[in-house]
């Protein structure tokens, strides 16, 4: 009987000690925010376009991290982003619903602009400069092509143009050999099933 009591007491004391250590550790090593959401946010293209159904990249990342959203809703990110998120989350990849369009950039036809500042308020990355009753202009290097400025414009003077291809950004394509194509396709298939 005494042996049993001794065992219970020592185990209880040990559990108490472990509980105290854990409680302290939780205070000391507390992490602000959701690290998983931040990691996912780092993978997203940051266009802030809202095509995923969330009001920006960070909310979508938080939703994915909380298993509320699927991994395949980022349209501009395309398949590569989807695979990266699926890999990070350790979930099965899902087919991307919508093909990513060519990178676009917004352009304001200045002679039609009435200077209403509605697009400036809509732009998620502050890529539009202008003031009330002054022409507005897009900083092309900052524009993510999210199209959020097109809808609010009352005179419809914003065009989405295909981003001009720069010779400095040109990259070599894969060599045009049968083996290179086979190798590439195999890798893509493999990535899709990983």
């Amino acid at each position, binding site marked *: 009987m005494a042996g049993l009591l001794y065992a219970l007491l020592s185990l209880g004391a040990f559990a108490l000690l472990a509980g105290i250590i854990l409680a302290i550790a939780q205070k000391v090593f507390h992490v602000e925010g959701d690290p998983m959401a931040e990691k996912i*946010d780092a993978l*997203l*293209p*940051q*266009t*802030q376009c809202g095509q995923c159904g969330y009001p*920006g*990249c960070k909310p979508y990342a938080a939703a994915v991290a909380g298993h509320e959203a699927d991994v395949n809703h980022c349209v501009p990110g395309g398949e590569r982003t989807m695979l990266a998120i699926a890999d990070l989350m350790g979930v099965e990849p899902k087919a991307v619903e919508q093909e990513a369009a060519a990178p676009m950039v917004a352009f304001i036809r200045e002679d039609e602009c009435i200077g209403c500042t509605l697009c400036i308020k809509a732009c*998620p*990355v*502050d*890529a539009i400069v202008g003031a009330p009753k002054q022409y507005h202009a897009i900083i092309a290097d*900052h524009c*993510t092509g999210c199209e959020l400025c097109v809808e609010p414009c009352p005179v419809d003077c914003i065009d989405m143009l295909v981003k001009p*291809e720069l*010779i400095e*950004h*040109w*990259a*070599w*394509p*894969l*060599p045009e*050999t*049968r*083996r*290179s194509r086979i*190798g*590439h396709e*195999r*890798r*893509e298939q493999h*990535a899709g099933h990983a």
Partner: protein
Amino acid sequence: MPAMLRNLAQRLGMMAHSFVGGIHPPQHKLSAGLKSELCPLAPLHIMPMKQHIGVACSPLVAVGDRVLRGQKIAKSEGYVSVPVHAPTSGRVVRIGDHAIPHPSGMGIPSIFIETDGDDAVDESLAPLADWRSMEPALLRERVRMCGLAGLGGAVFPTFIKLVQDARFPIETVILNGIECEPWLTSDHCLMLEYADEILAGLAIIMHMVKTDAAIIAIEDNKADAAAVLQQALEARDDLADVRVVVLPTRYPQGGEKQLIYTLTGREVPAGKLPMHIGVLCQNVGTTRALYQAVMQGRPLTERMVTVSGDAMPRPGNLLVRIGTPMRHVFAQRGLDVFEQVRLLHGGPMMGELLRHPDLPVVKSTNGMLAMREPTFMAAHQPEQPCIRCGHCSEACPAGLVPNLLADQCRSDQFERAESYNLFDCIECGACSYVCPSHIPLVHYFRYGKGQIAQQRREKHFAEESRGRSEAREMRIEQEKQARAARRSSVRAAHVGQSDDGSADAAGEEKKD
């Protein structure tokens, strides 16, 4: 000697230093020893706004302006950039996009100059004959103003290399007269004909970086050039500590890192420059252009170009004005039908295939080759599976494992390729040359490098966008708080006033 044996011998100190790997392609130096000729002026010159590594220039002239030879027509828009100069006198007829020798076949903004035939020279830059008493910084500015970029083919702005950094004093200047690409003979020709000017340029460079030691490196297939330079060297008394070193011919000996290791036994660390190990490496053509810039006040407006190839009726070395259409240059040597001919810009190992001859000669044009289809390197052979023979690893001058890297690039495993030092590859083409399976290895590396660069660019842009979006959210939040604070303060004031008023009224009521 097999690479393994050579490595062993070097490690044991039985041999002088020599870069690892390398190959011995057939030389085909058809135009070697031929006297250089002046290429007649073309009726139209096309000057692309970017002919160097770095930032593109912006035009300083407008359509209709008359320009003189050597007049600055475009100014640099950044530090890593050099201006562009008019190659001859004439009138600006158009400013617009034109294709340049680039694998993409894309065009960049260019200035079109119609030649007037006078070839009048802009004399605004005075010769600096007393450079010995001048500050290196002033000479460096002259080198920049004259638009000098490495004429060996890499076209890195020359003035950047000539910087004096107290942390990295230059001990040795290496004059690169290796010209290891098959077919090309432009540097060879320059060394034979302009040895004095090259040595004068070398003396200026040595003054600029404050060193007395220099090595002139020449391969043994150009023994005549070595003899001429040796003779010219003996005639000068100010270059006592300069040696002419003749190296056994091996490709790619002329690669900067390879040459530095062979001559000094020092390796340029990955991602670093030769100046970090106290070495400055200059091409002989650039050195002569530097002589012209300093001693004659002449900006870079012409260069030596080897026009050769097995489909070229009369190979030769031509002094060509920059901006001359290639079609015009080819016509000088009897080639004007371009069917069944493959055109190359640069040598066959590192040069790029051109789609058509309607491109201008630029600062990097060290050679223009016309090849018959069947003799052009293995590119037309179908790619076979790798048989793991290891020849590519033996040939690689950077000590990489090309077959592994190619597999990684082909299957988009870019992080892994990077960890296997993909970016140490100098794209010399030795691995593709020796591959018995005709795998276009270098092409895979270029694909991999391009994709990695693109991913880095996208990541950088995403990070900047995130920053902008977070800054905007913070601003909106602050504005909201400021508005709320203002509202509550106004309300508080208002409430306070009305409280006072009611209290007064109550008091009055009481009084009443």
